[in-house]
């Protein structure tokens, strides 16, 4: 770790140099992290100016606020070289033109948990600041509606604080009496005035429609409060949190190893794709370099899950528009893909199959036969769906020019993945910052033109073709070799090496029961997940598990753009917009 820090010291990154010049070196404190991402601490009074400078003046510009989160630092032991802080707010702007990231931290003290809101800079900061208020209790002054977002409005305390109980057994047994039920229900009542909406205009009275939490087209437990004038959608207020499990809190109780299966359930359509950023982040911390075979196996399975997730999107999108059959066809294909996943990993949707430093098992004998069948079969099916869905003139009429967003808008709302590419920006994490050996594969990055519902769907359809191409390359070029890295921190360790003598047995025992123990540091790992950029920000305090795990999911960010996309549309268009936003509620609420 120290070696990495030293090399980073020698060469000051250009962005830090520019910031020092602009604001003076005294305005910042620099922090070194394992992954070498520029990290600066600054004061609360300067942070907005710094962010504005990064967004507007600095070249390359940092167009998007990828993430905002907070850390409860009060029980953190290893904070060498960091300013004193009870709570730290972390901004993570990212630059698409320069292909680089920066992390800006602001220290807050317990008696003064206030921050200025960043909404004037980036609209996407809205929900993330609400989330921080909800889970950490940090007030963002100037925020239009700083209300709870993930926890129920009646919740007491702030869940991600270290002094908040993490398990039910630490609290009083929960009983729901009639009064509590009434109170909770009353708290859920939608009050338009709180959101700045009016109940009527000059010549008509608006209808407020609860679209969800249980609605056939809501894709999970989410509620949209729609302000309707006849069939016209005037405004939308999404209400999330029905699926909140507190995955980030759970991560603080689990060891590095035992948290892997929880990640599967974040984006439950993404399966092992969720394991990938997590295990890669831990590997970065541990300094593990995985064998090539592991990389290729991981890529292959991740692309299978990309196909599965996109197929589900494809079918449900068609059925939301009112076309019945594609849903069933897509599920048939998905079934075939799941069969392959099952025969390799033993599970279908949540394999939890990647390990720190490798994968759980080697590929089974004859694995290539099933996959060969699939890559021969699948492109022909996609061509059929193209004729039935994408070339269908009624679908085009329903979705062209509906829910339009341009690239600048996508930056403002922090939209990534297919939604960003549909606006015409050719930017895929797998190409721009290849991870897990993606640089060795040949594939195209499909883009759209108009950034409407049709383009978002078309990009996903083409991505399935490219995924199939990647899988084919994996099939033909699968390297030989071990399925686990030969590294002392690989978890679980290779069993053959444990039975040599008592020393190796003790080591084995420790790494199975504790898992890896690594030097304190911070690490960020981002991947191009099925729905956009999925980022894990892990803070290691030297324990057997994570001190703080931040999971930046694309769905949560995308949902807050739905009002922007659907204002002025009709009710039927709204379902098209919701479908092409392609969110998974587990991914939203975590």
């Amino acid at each position: 770790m120290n070696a990495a820090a030293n090399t980073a010291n020698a060469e000051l990154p250009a962005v830090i140099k520019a910031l020092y010049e602009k604001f003076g070196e005294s305005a910042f404190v620099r922090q070194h992290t394992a992954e070498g991402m520029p990290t600066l601490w600054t004061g609360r009074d300067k942070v907005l100016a710094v962010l504005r400078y990064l967004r507007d003046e600095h070249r390359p510009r940092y167009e998007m606020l990828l993430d905002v989160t907070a850390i409860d630092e009060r029980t953190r032991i290893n904070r060498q070289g960091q300013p004193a802080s009870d709570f730290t707010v972390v901004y993570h702007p990212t630059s698409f033109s320069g292909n680089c990231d920066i992390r800006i931290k602001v220290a807050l003290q317990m008696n003064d948990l206030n921050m200025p809101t960043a909404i004037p800079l980036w609209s996407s900061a809205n929900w993330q600041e609400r989330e921080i208020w909800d889970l950490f209790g940090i007030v963002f002054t100037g925020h239009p509606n700083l209300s709870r977002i993930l926890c129920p409005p009646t919740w007491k305390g702030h869940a991600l604080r270290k002094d908040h109980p993490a398990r039910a057994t630490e609290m009083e047994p929960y009983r729901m009496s009639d009064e509590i039920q009434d109170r909770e229900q009353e708290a859920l009542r939608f009050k338009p005035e709180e959101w700045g909406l009016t109940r009527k205009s000059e010549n008509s009275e608006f209808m407020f429609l609860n679209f969800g939490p249980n609605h056939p087209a809501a894709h999970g437990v989410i509620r949209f409060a729609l302000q309707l004038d006849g069939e016209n959608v005037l405004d939308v207020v999404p209400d999330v949190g029905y699926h909140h499990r507190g995955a980030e809190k759970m991560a603080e109780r689990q060891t590095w190893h035992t948290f892997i299966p929880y990640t599967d359930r974040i984006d439950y359509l993404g399966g092992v794709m969720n394991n990938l950023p997590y295990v890669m982040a831990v590997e970065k911390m541990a300094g593990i370099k995985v064998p090539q075979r592991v990389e290729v196996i991981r890529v292959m399975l991740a692309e299978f899950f990309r196909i599965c997730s996109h197929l589900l999107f494809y079918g449900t999108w068609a059925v939301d528009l009112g076309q019945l059959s594609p849903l069933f066809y897509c599920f048939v294909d998905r079934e075939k893909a799941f069969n392959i996943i099952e025969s390799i990993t033993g599970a279908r949707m949540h394999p939890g199959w990647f390990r720190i430093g490798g994968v759980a098992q080697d590929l089974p004998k004859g694995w290539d036969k099933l996959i060969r069948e699939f890559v021969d079969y699948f492109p022909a099916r996609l061509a059929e769906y193209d004729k039935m869905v994408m070339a269908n003139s009624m679908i085009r009429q329903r979705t062209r020019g509906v829910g339009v967003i341009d690239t600048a808008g996508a930056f403002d709302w922090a939209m990534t993945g297919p939604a960003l590419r549909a606006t015409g920006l050719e930017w895929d994490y797998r190409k721009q910052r290849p991870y897990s050996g993606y640089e060795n594969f040949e594939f195209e990055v499909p883009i759209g033109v108009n950034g409407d519902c049709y383009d978002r769907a078309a990009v996903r359809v083409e991505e399935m073709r490219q995924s199939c191409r990647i899988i084919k390359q994996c099939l033909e070029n699968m390297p030989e070799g071990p399925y686990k890295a030969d590294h002392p921190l690989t978890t679980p360790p290779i069993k053959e090496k444990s039975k040599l003598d008592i020393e190796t047995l003790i080591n084995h025992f420790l790494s199975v029961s504790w898992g890896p123990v690594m030097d304190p540091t911070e690490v960020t790992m981002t991947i191009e997940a099925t729905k956009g950029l999925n980022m894990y920000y892990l803070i290691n305090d030297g324990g057997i598990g994570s001190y703080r795990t931040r999971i930046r999911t694309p769905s949560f960010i995308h949902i807050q753009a739905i009002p922007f996309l659907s204002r002025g549309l009709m009710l039927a268009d709204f379902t098209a917009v919701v479908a092409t936003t392609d969110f998974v509620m587990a991914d939203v609420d975590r």
Partner: protein
Amino acid sequence: MFEFVVGSPLNIVLILGAVLVAAALLIWVERRVLGFLNERLGPNRVGPWGIAQSLADVGKLITKEDWVPPFADKLPFIVAPIIVPVVMLLSFAVIPIAPGVGIMDLNIGLLWVLAMAGLGSYSAMLGGLASNNKFSLLGGLRAAGQMISYEVFMGISILGIVILSDSFNLREIVEAQHKHGWFVFPQFIGFIVFVIAGLAETKRWPFDLAEGESEIISGFNTEYSGMKFGLFFVGEYIGMLLLSALIPVLFFGGWYAPFGLELPNAIISGIFWMCAKTGCWIFFFILVRAALVRPRYDQLMNYGWLVMLPLSLLNLLVTGAVVLAQGN
């Protein structure tokens, strides 16, 4: 062998019974065919090939709790589901099935069908209004707009036939086709408009905007359960059966055999060909359901008033002009 006379009690009982059985069977057929088209099985457990599925469904619906929401407007809520099946069965009364087989031989048969279709639209509207649910209300509004519009096009589209056959009587229309050939050829535009408007009238996919599952949950029947829902459901299928029977009568020569493929007995031949033609159309409608996309409400309305109405008026005008010219 007994004599078949239109309107005899035997006729009435047989035809209405056959229609009800056919509607129940149709539910099963549609689910099976749709399953086949969707690469799945469809209901295949109750009875051989699942043929008794509808019976089991009826049993379930009847024994289910018949719940009237406390916030609903009771009278219209209960009346609404009864309207569809009754009106659709009444429409069936004028459908000529074979020489001597039919319930009514009405000289204004075609208008009768239109009148019943007009009354049928109340079912969805009242259901939507009485449920006192926002989704139902939206569904009811959609149903009202859609049905009242497409009724107009449906009415105008068949006036060409009335001019050609010089009658509103469905039997005379069939006989006229026997003399002059199928009306689908001279009345092709009218035929297209009629099929589309008919689909919209029965609220079948892709014109199921009033139910629009992905938008308004189940539209006008969101609050219905048990046999009240069952009545809406059966009504829809009788409507589909009616439309599938009406198209052959109006455009494809009714009970008369095509290409001279007549069976020995005129009545049996008539029933056979009528059923065969109806079956073809039923299959067509199932195919349409499996393939097409639901249009948006404003698209549906624009399409109706800007395309269907001018087309059907033009058709009427040209037909009238040609008949006048030939008459002179």
